[in-house]
């Protein structure tokens, strides 16, 4: 990962990056929350931080915002070292997960707050706040209190409040976490459009991988306080550099070293996405395509096919997950959008073959390292 992280930062050296983290470390007592993170984020970039609970995403954000001071390492904002500055000395704003709207102020006062503490006059700041609320389609609620709004509306107020002071970087900590699916999807689109139109750098924390994939220019995947991988959605999804990323982002069928050796005769582990696999329903029917024992039963054109038994079927609406227990060991999931050739009862337990194109097998460089960690 260190290599990846550095490569991530190398990209940013041409221009002064919006954010530059170097060796950023934060410990709470014995817990190492953030562990030597190096990261450059370009101006105007939509950067997502993805990772399981407790992996240090929020802590990195709080370090950038200045709510925590780093144990070691530095934070640069547009080339200026702010490692020791207070939050109110940094040109960075945050949209908090729980929105942190001031409950005793009306919406317009909430949004005008940042201007007020900068000493802007009452009329002007209220005008600007009203305009900002207009922009997030809340122009008609100026006088309401936050408690009178729904979750999605509050989220937009928080956004307007952070944006009205025109920060260089906007930090968003799981801003959509508390919303329900439909609303979340709508807000994802709105957020993304806003970021595009304003050109502000967004650093977006989420543990929802689909959200990260759909919205980001680049994604940093956190694990245990470290950056496992940095890359575009494509890179992260299609070319995970380790089994942690392969498993965490989307569903993966990971084949361990033994299975890999048996199939490809090569050491190391590889993973294949469920949607890249096909089920050959008739593989088990005698005379149609005999089931092979053991290892690679590759058809021509770089396709590999492995026999197994259907263990369960899960209908997910737009597709069906077919769980197949391979004869050679691991259970795999295949996602198929096709019509199934029978009822669930008929298909369960059927002998099938699972096939994939060899180029869809992603070799994981660090499989061994990851497991040992």
């Amino acid at each position, binding site marked *: 990962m260190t290599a990846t992280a550095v490569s991530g930062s190398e990209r940013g050296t041409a221009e002064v990056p919006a954010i530059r983290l170097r060796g950023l470390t934060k410990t709470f007592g014995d817990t190492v929350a953030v562990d030597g993170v190096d990261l450059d984020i370009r101006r105007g970039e939509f950067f997502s931080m993805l990772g399981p609970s407790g992996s240090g995403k929020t802590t990195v954000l709080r370090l950038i915002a200045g*709510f925590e001071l780093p144990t070691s390492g530095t934070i640069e904002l547009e080339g200026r070292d702010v490692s020791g500055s207070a939050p109110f000395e940094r040109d960075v704003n945050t949209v908090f997960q729980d929105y942190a709207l001031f409950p005793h102020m009306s919406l317009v006062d909430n949004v005008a*707050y940042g201007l007020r*503490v900068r000493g802007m006059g009452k009329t002007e700041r209220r005008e600007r706040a009203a305009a900002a609320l207009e922009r997030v389609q809340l122009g008609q609620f100026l006088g309401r209190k936050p*408690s009178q709004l729904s979750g999605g509306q509050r989220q937009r107020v928080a956004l307007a409040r952070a944006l009205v002071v025109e920060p260089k970087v906007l930090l968003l900590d799981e801003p959509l976490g*508390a919303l329900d699916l439909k609303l979340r999807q709508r807000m994802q689109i709105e957020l993304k459009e806003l970021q595009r139109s304003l050109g502000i750098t967004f650093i977006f924390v989420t543990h929802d991988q689909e959200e990260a994939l759909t919205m980001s220019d680049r994604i940093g995947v956190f694990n245990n306080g470290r950056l496992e991988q940095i890359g575009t959605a494509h890179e992260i999804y299609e070319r995970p550099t380790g089994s942690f990323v392969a498993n965490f982002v989307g569903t993966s069928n990971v084949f361990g070293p033994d299975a890999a050796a048996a199939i490809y005769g090569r050491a190391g582990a590889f993973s294949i996405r469920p949607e890249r696999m096909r089920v050959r329903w008739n593989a088990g029917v005698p005379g149609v395509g005999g089931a092979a024992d053991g290892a690679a039963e590759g058809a021509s054109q770089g396709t590999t096919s492995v026999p197994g038994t259907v263990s369960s079927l899960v209908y997910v609406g737009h597709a069906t997950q077919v769980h197949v227990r391979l004869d050679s060991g691991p259970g795999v999931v295949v996602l198929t959008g096709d019509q199934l050739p029978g009822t669930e009862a008929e298909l369960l337990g059927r002998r099938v073959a699972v096939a994939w194109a060899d180029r869809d097998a992603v070799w994981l460089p660090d499989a061994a390292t990851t497991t040992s960690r």
Partner: protein
Amino acid sequence: MRLSRSAKTVLGVITGLVLFFIYAPLLLVVVNSFNADRTFGWPPSGFTLEWWGRAFDSTGVREALATSLWVAVVSTVLSLVLGTLLSMALQRYRFFGREVVNLLVILPIALPGIVTGIALNNMFTTILGVPLSLWTVIVAHATFCMVTVFNNAIARLRRMSPGLEEASADLGAGVFTTFRLVTFPQLRSALLAGGLLAFALSFDEIIVTTFTIGAGETTLPIWILQNLFRPNQAPVVNVVAVVLILVSILPIWLAQRLSADSVGVGAASGRAAAKAAKKG
């Protein structure tokens, strides 16, 4: 919890009885303020408005009332400042001796008033050599009133999302601006509730006051104590008590409305916030 109708009725009846138990003696005070009998024989021997007239003419009552108000206001203000500072310190920081300070603030109200009274009296007169005055009363009152403010404020601070102050700093506000614009407005109703309780405690305090008040000064409770057993004054005391009860309705109602620690809207929104926090 769904209770059977009979259980609810029983509880309602008990509540009614308790309220009767609470109010019957107060009613007696009201009745006695019109009782022609100076020693309040029961049932009343006759009706008179004399005591009310006398109470309104009595400069002693008025002066004592003014003194009491002054003492209560100043000690409430002091305890507001001290209690708020302390609650913020204890809620936000873990430091050596925190538990001790937490216990310390409770001690003045938990220890019997007479102990506090003689300790402070001894402190002022023998050790410091400060002549007793209204200020010594105020110092004493602030000491034991601090805890009511402290408790209300710290309860509110615990519920207050720390994110709000961070949000304020994030938007560019310094430490003091944040307190003025964000922390204080949210503490306000808790401080009002705590302050009112402090005010009530100070206003009605008799024991500690007895030991710390200077010559020639009279607070209302002291006046009452001095007049309670005086033939022509005891009925006037009843009038004063009735007036106090009536006048107290307003601040109580206010405190009730503004305190989220009690029932109603505040509590409901508090629960909603807690729920939201859990989801996150």
